[in-house]
């Protein structure tokens, strides 16, 4: 029983001194205590832990420190520093609890923080319980019990106690020295229990000290759950097959390009539109785009390859605004043929000059014109008449009795259109001397041959 009381007294005394030291530290050195109300800093500081903290300036905060700050909602939060950004004497802190998966949402801007210096588990429970009114009453009662139980024993010990003091007095030491002597002697003297009791009562100070400087700190939990989507797979346009390319007709060397629908993905979807690309080489080169946005899958080229030239056609399938896929190229060379006339005017026959001119519809009022296919043929003409003045030749501008130069002269050819030089009023006059037989022979020639057409008109 006595040992137990001794133990309690000394424990109380030690706590009392600790409390005083803590009180001074709190008051003058910026120390404080933190009670951990939740476990986001576990395992280092579990729920119910207590920590000793010291106020430090913003500039002294380093990542890895455990610091206590006040959140916007007024709650005190104690977490570990992830990063700190110093601006002037303010630091912006990103904190994260050790047990948390993510940093705190709030960035704390602070001038100073409480940095955790040391921590102990369970201490917070003890302190929190002691700090309640019942706890304090119990503490005071304990102190009083220890104190009041002291004097009863003191009666026996007074003599020795007095002796010791006398002894010290004889040595001539001052009161201060004697006081120190008390402390030194205490462990060996039963009389120490006086001071033990006194010190035990100091236990109350523990509560009072912590009370004045303890902050409950919230270490709030976080939990991040992630919903991962399964895979989203974009499909693709299949590579279009090389198109079929055919000569448009025997007289038209231009190509007609046709192709089949291009699948988009495996579900029967096909390309929404197509372009036809014309190259002049089997690989590489720059394409001319024909029939852009075609949906009928037939495209007639307006141009055709020249002699000894090959065109290469490819189909580019499109889907939506941006997806394209270009297919293989199909080479094309038209079956080249000798030129053929068509739509020539005027027609052969017997006619009044005025009617003939009225029927003519040639560009630039040419005396005669027509179409010659394929493109690239050379057209020559021979235009003569036999009237009152005998045989005459068309010079390209007027009728002359003496035919000079070659009998055949080049007509004007533009694309597939040929026309006779001169104007119709001069070539088909309506005077008395101009009545007679007019003979126009045009001949178209290319590498593969030539063909001619003769128009005979009798002007009445």
């Amino acid at each position, binding site marked *: 029983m006595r040992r137990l009381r001794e133990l309690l007294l000394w424990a109380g005394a030690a706590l009392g001194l600790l409390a005083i030291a803590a009180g001074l530290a709190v008051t003058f050195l910026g120390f404080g205590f933190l009670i951990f109300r939740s476990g986001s800093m576990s395992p280092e500081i579990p729920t119910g832990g207590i920590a000793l903290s010291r106020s430090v300036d913003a500039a002294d905060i380093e990542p890895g420190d455990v610091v206590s700050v006040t959140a916007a909602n007024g709650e005190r939060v104690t977490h570990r520093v992830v990063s700190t950004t110093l601006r002037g004497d303010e630091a912006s802190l990103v904190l994260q609890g050790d047990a948390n998966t993510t940093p705190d949402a709030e960035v704390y801007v602070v001038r100073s923080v409480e940095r955790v210096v040391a921590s102990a588990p369970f201490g917070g429970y003890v302190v929190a319980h002691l700090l309640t009114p019942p706890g304090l009453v119990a503490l005071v009662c304990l102190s009083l019990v220890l104190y009041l139980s002291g004097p009863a024993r003191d009666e026996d010990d*007074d003599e020795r106690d007095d002796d010791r003091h006398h002894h010290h007095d004889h040595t001539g030491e001052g009161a201060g020295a004697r006081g120190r002597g008390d402390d030194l002697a205490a462990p060996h003297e039963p009389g120490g229990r006086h001071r033990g009791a006194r010190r035990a009562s100091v236990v109350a100070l523990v509560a009072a*000290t912590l009370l004045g400087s303890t902050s409950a700190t919230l270490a709030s*939990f976080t939990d991040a759950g992630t919903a991962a989507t399964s895979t989203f797979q974009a*499909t693709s346009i299949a590579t279009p097959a090389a198109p079929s390319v055919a000569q448009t007709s025997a007289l038209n060397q231009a190509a007609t390009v046709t192709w089949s629908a291009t699948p988009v993905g495996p579900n029967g979807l096909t390309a929404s539109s197509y372009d036809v690309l014309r190259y002049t080489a089997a690989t590489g080169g720059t394409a001319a785009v024909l029939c852009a946005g075609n949906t009928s899958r037939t495209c007639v080229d307006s141009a055709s390859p020249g002699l000894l030239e090959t065109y290469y056609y490819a189909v580019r399938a499109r889907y939506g605004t941006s997806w394209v896929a270009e297919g293989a190229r199909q080479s094309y060379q038209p079956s080249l043929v000798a030129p053929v006339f068509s739509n020539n005017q005027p027609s052969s026959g017997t006619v009044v000059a005025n009617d003939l001119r009225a029927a003519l519809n040639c560009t630039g009022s040419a005396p005669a014109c027509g179409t010659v296919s394929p493109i690239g043929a050379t057209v020559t003409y021979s235009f003569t008449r036999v009237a009152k003045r005998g045989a005459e030749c068309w010079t390209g501008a007027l009728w002359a009795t003496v035919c000079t130069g070659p009998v055949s002269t080049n007509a004007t050819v533009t694309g597939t259109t040929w026309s006779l030089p001169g104007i119709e009023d001069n070539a088909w006059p309506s005077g008395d001397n101009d009545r007679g037989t007019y003979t126009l022979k045009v001949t178209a020639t290319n590498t593969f041959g030539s063909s001619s057409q003769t128009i005979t008109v009798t002007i009445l």
Partner: protein
Amino acid sequence: MTQHRRPAGPSKRRSGRTRALLSLAAVGVLATGMSVKGTFAFWTDSATAATGSFSAGTLDITVNGQLAGQANNGGSTTVASLTLGSMVPGESIAATFPVANNGSVPLTYNLTGTGSGGLAVTNGMQYSVTFGGTATNTGSAATGNRAGSCGAVATDTNTTLLTSTASTFATARALAAGASDTVCVVARLSSQAPNALQGLSGTASLVFDSKQVGA
């Protein structure tokens, strides 16, 4: 302490008691002196520092019925219904799944998303998130017009592109303990998807980052 002992010198018998009393007095003075300012703070604090305020509770958010328990904090679960193959530009799919507070304390959560894979690029996969909607899916792959909706049919303008940079879909949504939200997600391949995205795939991570409310 020395000061308090000094007067105890003359009377040895009373010295222990006197010094004890003085100490007690000093203790009292010190205690009250130190906590004069903190008296109200104390009583206020005592409410928060009382036994009951220790958070013995748990914070636990579940996604699609998965990730329960502290062991799965920060975990990830795959929502199987959020998938679509052979997508052409403009196609979308919608699906719902629950997010629940499986813990014992109320929480708030933020929802952010990030994309990954070849479709997590400009005009790639884009997403929308609504709460409480019903997922409706129409169209067919054969006609390339599959469309998902959570009330409004997804378009390029009402969906958000997700790249490796996180985008926020919701902030501070509250969930009481035991409560749940129905999350409706539309995933859409932008109608402006560039040619380079043909044949590529992508996924997204929707992170429900929950935080304890108050104590």
